[in-house]
């Protein structure tokens, strides 16, 4: 298009402070129709805070926001919606006890009856063009996080926004889902919408963006405008971004060489799972006859499209979900009858993908969250009394070791940025006594350097002789780390492949239902 495009929304010198941090420091940003504006930056860089101000959740301390060229104070989420700004937030914004349809209907005039038929027609129209299926009448709590993310994207679409903001909306999608979202964004901007797209995956940024802005410690440190963007190839864009973000040059930072580990073949498996089964629920397939072994030092990956039973598998192993059959042995001793706490005691650790829900207690300080699973145990508690000094000492150590960016140890954990919450969880689960560790999507929402660091930690975990089960929807991640990869589909393992050169195609075939 050659018509001069005016900004739909522009930020001018916007600053936002929170106690202890400057989340945004005099940021300028132009958001234009017909453009996908990618916002990049490490964990805690202030991306979500910026979005919060555009969606009316927060007001800037300094600077101003222009909407259609007019200085506008976006006073409430309702105001933002009325201005045509639709947001998919980083953290789930669905009511778990309502159905998908009811969630989509939320926000209508209170005196009316929910217009279900109208919604169904509208959703049918949108899902047809998107090629997704949405269970309108399922309770949100019964959906996987990936499905919930689809619902949130759908909701933003239903509302006919002019500016669509996606804050890490690809973190829970499958590679196919991500590509579809990319194609959809392209179609939408061609229709004249503006999109702000936040991601940690540089490939997505290069593939889907028109313009890129990079934030660092609250400040905008660089921008690649569309003209330059088009002139550069994917590799050139990625290396330019990496330079902006980290100040150092690397070709493809994610393509880490997989170290060849030697697993002693004669070693007895640390974790043996036989015929594990979980009853299906209304909206999940359950699990049927899951069997696998993991030897000390081995990394077994579970690949599969989200919602195929990954969460059930992790929870069943951790003891959080009732099984209807099968056995689980840890170092030869059956643990299937043990409670969550007893399994943990025996060295089984589970890193949930639900950071804020079951992973942490948001209002508790960072320090206590490190030891949540040891509440009452020495040396952090003695005779039921919290040992402040001991806790703080150890917590300070973990904060340093895992590079948790927090204003202080006393900060409630929910105030940290998403990536930093994940580091707290990692630190907690990998601490003393672990033998078998289950990771469920351990790097989602982490920025590049944290992703790489976390992956290295997981590799180190295995190298220490622990057995690791790595559940992920990111195939690249599995290929770069695992010794073997099993594929889960509809609640059962449909095949296991050695991670050799042809693993990618084999796993891919299994995932779409073909034999490897």
């Amino acid at each position, binding site marked *: 298009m050659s018509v001069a495009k005016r900004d739909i929304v522009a930020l001018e010198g916007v600053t936002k402070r929170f106690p202890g941090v400057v989340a945004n420091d005099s940021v300028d940003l132009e958001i234009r129709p017909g453009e996908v504006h990618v916002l990049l930056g490490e964990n805690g860089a202030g991306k979500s805070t910026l979005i*919060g101000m555009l*969606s009316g*959740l*927060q007001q800037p301390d300094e600077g101003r926001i222009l909407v259609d060229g007019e200085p506008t104070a976006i006073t*409430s*989420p*309702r105001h933002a*919606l*009325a201005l045509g700004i639709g*947001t998919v*937030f980083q953290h789930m*914004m*669905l*009511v*778990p*006890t*309502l159905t998908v349809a*009811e*969630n989509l*209907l*939320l*926000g*209508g*005039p*209170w*005196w*009316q*009856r*929910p217009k279900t038929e109208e919604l169904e027609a509208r959703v049918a129209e949108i899902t047809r063009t998107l090629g997704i299926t949405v269970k309108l009448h399922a309770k949100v709590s019964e959906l996987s996080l990936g499905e919930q993310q689809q619902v949130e994207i759908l909701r933003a679409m239903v509302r006919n926004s002019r500016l669509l903001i996606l804050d890490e909306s690809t973190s829970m999608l499958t590679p196919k889902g991500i590509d579809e979202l990319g194609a959809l964004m392209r179609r939408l901007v061609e229709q004249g919408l503006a999109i702000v797209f936040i991601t940690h995956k540089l490939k997505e940024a290069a593939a889907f963006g028109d313009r890129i802005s990079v934030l660092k410690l609250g400040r905008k440190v660089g921008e690649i405008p569309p003209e330059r963007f088009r002139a550069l190839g994917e590799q050139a864009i990625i290396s330019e971004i990496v330079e902006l973000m980290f100040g150092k040059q690397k070709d493809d930072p994610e393509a880490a060489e997989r170290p060849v580990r030697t697993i002693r073949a004669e070693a007895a498996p640390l974790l043996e799972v036989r015929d594990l089964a979980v009853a299906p629920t209304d909206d999940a397939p359950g699990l049927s006859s899951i069997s696998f072994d993991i030897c000390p030092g081995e990394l077994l990956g579970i690949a599969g499209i989200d919602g195929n039973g990954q969460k059930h598998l992790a929870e069943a192993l951790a003891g959080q979900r009732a099984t209807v059959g099968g056995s689980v042995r840890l170092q030869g001793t059956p643990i299937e009858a043990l409670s969550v706490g007893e399994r943990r005691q025996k060295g089984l650790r589970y890193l949930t993908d639900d950071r804020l829900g079951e992973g942490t207690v*948001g209002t508790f300080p960072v320090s206590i969250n490190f030891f949540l699973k040891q509440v009452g145990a020495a040396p952090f508690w003695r005779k039921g009394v919290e040992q402040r000094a001991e806790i703080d000492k150890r917590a300070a150590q973990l904060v340093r070791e895992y590079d948790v960016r927090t204003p202080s140890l006393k900060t409630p954990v*929910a*105030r940290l940025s998403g990536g930093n919450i994940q580091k707290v969880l990692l630190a907690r689960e990998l601490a003393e006594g672990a033998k078998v560790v289950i990771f469920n999507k351990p790097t989602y929402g982490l920025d590049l350097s944290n992703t790489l660091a976390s992956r290295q930690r997981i590799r180190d975990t295995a190298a220490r002789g622990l057995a690791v089960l790595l559940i992920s929807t990111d195939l690249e991640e599995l290929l770069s780390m695992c010794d073997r990869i099993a594929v889960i589909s509809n609640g059962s393992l449909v095949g296991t492949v050695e991670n050799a050169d042809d693993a990618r195609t084999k796993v891919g075939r299994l995932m779409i239902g073909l034999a490897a």
Partner: protein
Amino acid sequence: MTGLFSEVFLSALLFGAVTAAIPLLLAGLGEQMSEKAGVLNIGIEGMMLAGAYLGFVGAFYSGSLWLGFLTGAGGGVAVALVMALLCVRIGLNQIVIGIALTLGLEGLTALLHHFQFSRSYPRLRAVDVTVIPLLSDIPVIGPALFRQHLIVYLAVALVFAMGYIYRRTQLGLNLQAAGDKPAALDVAGIDVVRTRTVAVLTTGALAGLGGAYLANVGAGLFIPFITNGAGFLGIVLAMLARGRPVWVLFGALLFGVCLSLTTAMQVAGINIPTDVIQMLPFLAVMVMLVLFGRRASLPAALGIPYERGAR
């Protein structure tokens, strides 16, 4: 049959049960709405007392029971307004404020009553009942259930109206979202503070009405501390009812029967100490809590003030 189980006696027992159940029903329905929206309304006992006192004063001076109900509801709303301001808007601790309101109103209503009536306890005249033809001729239950004041039928109708609101209207969705995930409601464009305020004020109106019924219809007079824990029973009912208004009705009737039995046994002169008899309703609470308390599912954000953008 004669004595304890005569037809007349049973009918009176049931009549008493309904009379005792209505205030509990209104309080329970009101509390249920607050809790659905995420506000734990401990101040409901105080709202009932305000309703009982103002309801009685209104009816006493005007001679109209309906005006009494109106002033009673208004009294409840006035207390609820304080609650909404402090707990919903400013975000103070709901339990602390709730207890303070209840204690404050116990004192205040007793004091005002003393100023006004000194030590006399004037009575209202007996209430007019609405007799439902045919149904009221059924033995035992006819006179007990179908010769009641009009407001009783309205209260029962309210149960179904509430059920409809919760399950079939946009308002019902808003209330549930405000209690389970207020942030999601907020970003959908609905003001959480306003939604919760509406819920708390409605609670006030219902609790006030319940208090007025208790004084004007149940007792025919006002005495200090007349509610005697009815508001707290309402909280128990709301918690056990798991968001369903019909269960509040069943629970209220059950407690009503216990309360009525207490009176009946005292009247019948059964040889048990009255203190023991008076424990009956509270024993029933304990039994209910033990039996069903585990299944009570409360909204995730119950008792947590909502502040936009805080995390």
